[in-house]
C-alpha cells in the first residue's frame, strides 16, 4: 500500500480502466495498426484532393526549375566550346547569345523556384489548416465519455505536437520526392541506353535499396508511433501539473513531479533517439549501396573498357550519372524520414477522426413539438452505468411535468449527477429512454436539445475573453443590454461593474482572478441568458456566500417559475424552494413528494431537514 518515493512508475501502473491507456494499446495491436495505416492513407488523399490542380502546377514548376537548372552548366560548357573560338576571331555574337540564354535560364529558374516554393508552402499550410480544423471539430463532437478516458492532455497533444510533425513534412519534401523520382527514372533510362551489362550491375543495387527501405519503413513506423505516444504523456503530465500548480507548491510535490516528468521526458527522448538512430543507419546504408555500386561499376566497367567491350567515354558518363542517381536518393531518405514521422501522427489523428461518437447525432432528427408549455421530461426504465459491471441507475422511471421544479437529494453515489448528465445527454442510457416533450433525446438534433436543456454544474468554466463574452456564451446573439440584464437578474451586476473594466474585463486563464463564487454567478447569468425550457442545476450554488445565494435563489424564483428544473443541491435552502423533492439512494427513488409534506413525514428528508434547521442556528 505504501508508495515509496523512488517508485515513480507506480501511479501509472494502476490502471482503473483498460480504456485509459487505450492510445498505448493502439501501438501494439497489429490489427488496429493496419487499420489506422489504411485510414491515414485515405485521410491523406482526402486532404490533398482539393489541391490537385495546384499540386500539378507545383510539379510543373518544379520540372521547369529543374530543366532550367540543368541548362545552366550545359550553356557554360557550350560557351567554352563554341564561343571562345569566334571571340578570338573578333565575333562576340555567340558569346552574347549564350550569355543571354544563360540569363534567361537563370531567370526561369528563379521564377520557377520561387513559384514552386510559394505554391507548395501554400498547399502544405492549407492541408494543415484543414486537418487542424477537422480534428478540433471532431473532438468537440465526441461525447463527454470519450474525453473522460482520452484525457485533455492527449487532446492537446493531438492538436499541437502531432500537427507540428505533419507541418514539418509539408514545409518541404515534395521537391525531393519529385526530383528523386525524376532523376531515378531518367538516369536509369540513360544508363540502360548507354551500356546494358553495366546498367545490369547498377540495377543489382535495387533489391538492396528496396530491402533497406522496407526495413526502415517497418522499424521507423513503430518507433515514430512510440514518439507520438510518449510526447503525449509528457504533455499530459505537464498540463496536469501546471493546472494544479497551487496544490503542487502547497504540498511540496515539486521533487516528485520532477522525477515523474524526468521519466516521461526520458521515455520520449529514448523514443526519439530510436528514430534518430534508425535514420542514422538508413541514410548511410543508402550511401554504402551507392558507393559500392560506384566501385563495382568502376571495376567492371574498367574491365569492359580494357577488353574493348565498351568506350572509355561511356564509363566516364556512367560514373557521372551514377552520382546523379544516388544523390537524390539521399535527399529522398531524409524525406522518407519526415514522412514516417508525419504518418505516425496522421495515424493518431485518423484514429480520432474515425472515433464513432457513442452519443451520435440522429440521422433524421425529430423536431420538438410546438407546445405552449415545453419542458416535460420523462425517464422510462432507464438503466445506466459508467462501467458495465457497476450500474448506477436500474430501471429508473421518472416523469417531470413541464414547469415543475424538482430537487434531487441523496448521498454521494446515489445517481443524482448521473440523472443530470443523462438529461443533458452527456451519455445515452444503456437501456430505456429519456424523453423531452415526448421525443427521445437520441432523436433530437444537438442544436435543438441544447437550446431546450442547459446544465449548470459546480465546476464553472470561464473561457478566455471578457466577462460579457462569457455570459453571452449562453446566447451568442444577445446584445450588451441583454447580457447586463441577465447579470442583474442573477445579482452578478454589482461585482462585475466593480471590476477594472466592468463587463469588458478579461477573465484570464480559467478565470484566474474571479473567485469561485463570482465564477458561479457568471455561470448562472449565462444559464439565465440561455433561457432554456429545462434547467439542470448540479450543485451550482455551492461556493456562494449566504447573501449571494439568497439573491440567486430569489432570482431562481423568477427563472424557474415558467420552466422545468432539476436541482441538485446539498443545501436544503435551495431544496425547499422546489415543487417536489426526490430522495435517491443507490439509483432508486426512495421518497417523492412536495418538500413540506416530506418534511412532516418521518423519512430521510425529514431527518435531513431537521439536521439542516439545527445547523442554521
Amino acid at each position: 500500500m505504501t508508495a515509496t518515493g523512488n517508485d515513480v512508475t507506480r501511479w501509472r501502473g494502476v490502471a482503473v480502466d483498460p480504456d485509459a491507456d487505450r492510445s498505448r494499446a493502439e501501438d501494439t495491436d497489429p490489427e488496429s495498426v493496419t487499420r489506422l495505416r489504411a485510414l491515414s492513407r485515405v485521410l491523406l488523399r482526402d486532404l490533398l484532393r482539393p489541391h490537385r490542380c495546384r499540386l500539378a502546377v507545383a510539379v510543373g514548376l518544379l520540372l521547369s526549375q529543374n530543366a532550367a537548372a540543368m541548362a545552366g552548366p550545359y550553356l557554360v560548357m557550350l560557351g567554352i566550346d563554341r564561343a571562345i573560338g569566334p571571340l578570338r576571331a573578333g565575333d562576340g555574337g555567340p558569346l552574347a547569345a549564350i550569355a543571354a540564354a544563360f540569363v534567361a535560364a537563370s531567370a526561369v529558374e528563379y521564377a520557377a523556384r520561387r513559384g514552386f516554393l510559394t505554391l507548395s508552402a501554400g498547399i502544405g499550410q492549407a492541408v494543415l489548416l484543414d486537418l487542424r480544423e477537422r480534428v478540433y471539430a471532431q473532438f468537440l463532437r465526441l461525447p463527454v465519455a470519450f474525453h473522460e478516458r482520452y484525457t485533455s492532455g492527449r487532446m492537446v497533444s493531438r492538436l499541437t505536437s502531432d500537427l507540428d510533425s505533419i507541418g514539418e513534412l509539408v514545409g518541404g519534401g515534395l521537391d525531393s520526392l519529385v526530383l528523386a523520382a525524376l532523376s531515378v527514372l531518367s538516369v536509369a533510362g540513360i544508363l540502360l541506353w548507354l551500356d546494358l551489362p553495366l546498367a545490369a550491375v547498377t540495377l543489382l543495387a535495387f533489391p538492396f535499396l528496396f530491402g533497406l527501405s522496407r526495413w526502415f519503413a517497418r522499424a521507423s513506423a513503430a518507433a515514430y508511433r512510440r514518439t507520438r505516444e510518449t510526447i503525449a504523456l509528457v504533455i499530459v503530465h505537464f498540463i496536469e501539473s501546471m493546472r494544479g500548480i497551487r496544490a503542487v507548491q502547497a504540498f511540496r510535490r515539486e521533487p516528485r513531479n520532477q522525477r515523474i516528468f524526468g521519466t516521461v521526458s526520458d521515455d520520449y527522448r529514448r523514443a526519439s533517439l530510436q528514430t534518430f538512430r534508425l535514420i542514422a543507419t538508413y541514410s548511410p546504408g543508402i550511401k554504402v549501396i551507392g558507393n559500392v555500386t560506384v566501385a563495382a561499376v568502376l571495376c567492371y566497367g574498367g574491365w569492359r573498357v580494357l577488353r574493348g567491350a565498351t568506350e572509355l567515354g561511356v564509363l566516364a558518363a556512367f560514373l557521372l550519372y551514377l552520382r546523379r542517381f544516388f544523390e537524390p536518393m539521399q535527399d529522398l531518405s531524409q524525406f522518407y524520414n519526415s514522412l514516417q514521422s508525419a504518418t505516425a501522427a496522421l495515424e493518431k489523428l485518423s484514429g480520432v477522426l474515425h472515433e464513432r461518437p457513442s452519443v451520435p447525432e440522429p440521422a433524421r432528427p425529430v423536431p420538438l413539438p410546438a407546445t405552449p408549455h415545453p419542458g416535460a421530461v420523462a425517464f422510462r426504465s432507464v438503466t445506466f452505468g459508467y462501467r458495465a459491471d457497476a450500474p448506477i441507475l436500474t430501471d429508473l422511471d421518472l416523469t417531470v411535468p413541464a414547469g415543475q421544479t424538482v430537487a434531487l437529494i441523496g448521498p454521494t453515489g446515489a445517481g443524482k449527477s448521473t440523472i443530470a448528465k443523462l438529461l443533458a445527454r452527456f451519455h445515452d442510457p444503456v437501456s430505456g429512454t429519456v424523453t423531452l416533450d415526448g421525443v427521445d433525446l437520441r432523436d433530437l438534433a444537438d442544436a435543438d436539445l441544447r437550446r431546450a436543456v442547459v446544465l449548470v454544474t459546480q465546476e464553472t468554466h470561464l473561457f478566455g475573453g471578457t466577462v460579457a463574452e462569457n455570459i453571452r456564451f449562453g446566447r451568442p446573439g444577445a446584445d450588451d443590454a441583454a447580457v447586463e440584464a441577465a447579470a442583474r437578474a442573477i445579482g452578478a451586476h454589482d461585482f462585475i461593474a466593480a471590476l477594472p473594466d466592468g463587463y469588458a474585463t478579461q477573465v484570464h486563464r480559467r478565470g484566474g482572478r474571479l473567485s469561485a463564487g463570482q465564477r458561479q454567478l457568471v455561470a448562472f447569468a449565462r444559464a439565465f441568458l440561455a433561457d432554456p425550457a429545462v434547467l439542470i442545476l448540479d450543485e451550482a450554488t455551492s461556493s456562494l456566500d449566504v447573501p449571494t445565494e439568497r439573491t440567486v435563489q430569489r432570482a431562481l424564483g423568477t427563472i424557474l417559475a415558467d420552466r422545468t428544473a432539476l436541482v441538485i443541491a446539498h443545501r436544503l435552502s435551495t431544496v425547499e424552494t422546489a415543487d417536489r423533492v426526490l430522495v435517491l439512494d443507490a439509483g432508486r427513488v426512495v421518497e417523492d413528494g412536495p418538500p413540506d409534506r416530506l418534511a412532516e413525514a418521518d423519512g430521510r428528508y425529514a431527518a435531513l431537514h431537521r439536521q439542516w434547521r439545527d445547523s442554521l442556528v
Partner: protein
Amino acid sequence: MPAESDGSPAPTAGRHPLHNLWRLRHYLRPHAAEFGWLMLAGLAATGAGISVPLVAQRVVDGPVARQDPAGLVRLAGLALLLGLAEALLIFVRRWVQSSSSMAIEAAIREDVYAHLQRLPASFHDRWQSGQLLSRITSDLSVIRRFLSFGLFFLVLNLVTYVAVVVLLIRLHTALGLVVAASAVPLFLITRRFARAYHTASRRMQDQQGDVATLVEETAQGLRTMKAYGRGPELVARFAGSARTLHDTGVGKGRLLARTSALLDLVPNLTLGVVLVTGAAAAARGVLTIGELVAFVSLQLMLTWPVQGMGWIIANGQEAATAADRVQEVLTTPPAIVDAPHAVTLPPAEVAGRLRFEAVSFRYPGTAAPVLRGIDLTVEPGETLALVGATGCGKSTLLSLVPRLHDVTDGRITLDGHDLRDLRLAALRRLVGVAFEEPTLFSMSVWENLTLGRPDAAEDEVRAALALAQADFAYDLPWGLATRVGEQGLSLSGGQRQRLALARAVLGRPALLVLDDPLSALDVHTEALVEAALKRVLGNTTALLVVHRPSTIALADRVALLEQGRITAVGTHSELLATVPAYRAVLSAEPPPVVPAIDPTPGGRGLVRS
C-alpha cells in the same frame, strides 16, 4: 510574448537576435567534445565523398587508359574503401549527433519544467498554459533540430564556401575575386532574410502557443461547451486562430521562397559573369580553356552550400526565437524563494501563533489592492473563520499563508518569524491546505493523500480518511491504490473535496488553512465531518474560509472581511449581535428588505427560507 502584459522580461530589443540561443550554450558544454568529433567526422565524410569521383577520374585517366588491370582493381578498391569510410563517418556523425542533441533537448525541457514549478502562482495566473506547453514541446524541438541539423550544416557550408573560394582565387585571382564578391549580395540577402524571418517565426511560435492555449481551454471547458451546445461557435473561434497561424505560415513560406530563389539566382549570375569574362580572357589568351573548365567545375561546387543557406538560416532563426521564448521563462526570477538566511522551524517547536501585520496584497500587474492593511492574530490552537462576501479576498488571504503569493506590504509571522525568513519547504510542511477547488492528480488515492508527506504511515492515512468521512475510498475498485484524477476514476465534487480535506489534515500539520472545506458536502456528511474536524481543530491553529452558518460552529472567533479590510473580529454571537454587515453576510435569515418578487403562498419556485 503572452497575450497580456505581465511583467515578463523585456523583449530582447537591441540585443543580437542570437543572444538567447547563445545563452543556452552551457547545455552544449557537456557535449562539446562530441560536437567536435562529429564536426570532424562530418568534414572527413565530405572529404571522402569528394574524393570518390576524383578516384574514379584517375581510374579513367590511369589504369584504363594504360591497360593496367591490377591498377584498376587497386583504385576501385580505394574507391570502395573511401565510399565505405564516407558512409561510416556519416553514420558516426548522425549517431553521435542524435544522442547529444536529444540529451540537450531533454535537459532544457527538464530545467524549464523545474523552473516553472518554482515560479509562483501569480506567474501561472498570467501565463496561458498553452504558451508554456508550446515552449517545452515545439520550441524545444526547433532548438533540437538546429543542433542536429542547422548548426552542423551552417559550419560545414561556411567551411566549404570559404575553402572553395580560396581555391578559386588561387586558381585565377581575378575570376576568383569575382566569385568572392558575390558573397556581398549573398550576405545582404541573407541578412535581410534573417531579420524578416526572425519576426515571422516569433509570430508563428506565439500563435502556435495561442492555438495550444485555445485547445487546452477547450479541453477544460468541454462540459460547458457540451451543456450549451456551443460547438459551432468554438469551432469558428478556433478556425480564426488556426487561420491566423495558417496565414503566418504562408507568409513564412513566401519569405523563404523569395530568398531561396534569390540564393539560387546569385550564384547563377556569378557563373554567367565568370563565363563571359573568362571567355573574353581565354580569347585574349590570358587564360587557358582547361583552366576555365576547371574553374567553372569547382565553382559549381558552391551551388549547394549557397542554396542550402536559406533553409539553414530559417532553421537558425526559428531556433533563435524559440530560445528567446524559452529564456523568457527561464530568466523570470522565481519571486518566492528561500531567503539566504532562511531557517527551518521544527514542527515540534511550533506553537502556532499566526500574525498578520499591516498586510496588503495586490496581484502583479493590477492597480487595486485585494487586501489592505490586514491586522489579525490567530492564537496557538485557535480556529479563526474568515467571513465575507463573494470576491472580497478571503481565498487570497489564505494563499498568503503557505506563501503561494507573497505580501505586497506588511508581514505575516509564525511564532514571531516572518514567513519569508522560513525555509519554503519547511513552512509548507507546517501548513495543511485545502483549496476551494480540490485538485486531485492522476495517481492513486494513496499518493494523492500523501502528496505532502510521502512518508505517512498507514494509520495516519486511515485517520485522515476517517476524519474527512472519505471511507468511500476503500470501496473503490482497487481501494486506495485506485488511480483517480483526470487519467483515472472520476469522483464527484463531494468525494474530491473530502479527499482534499483528508490530505490537508493528514499528519496533523501545525497550521491548517481550509478554504470553504465543506461546500460540496451534503448536510449529513457535513455534520459528521464537522464533528470530526472540531476535535482536530481543538489544538491546531487554523484559518478557515466559511460561507455557511453551519460551518461557523468550528471557529473560536470570526473575522469579517469587507473589500480587502478586516472590519470586525469577535465570536460568532458577538458579531451577529453587534455587526449588521456580518449579520447580512452570514445570517440565515433574509435581510429585512422586502424581496422584489412577491411570494404567493403555495406558489412554486419561491423563497421560503
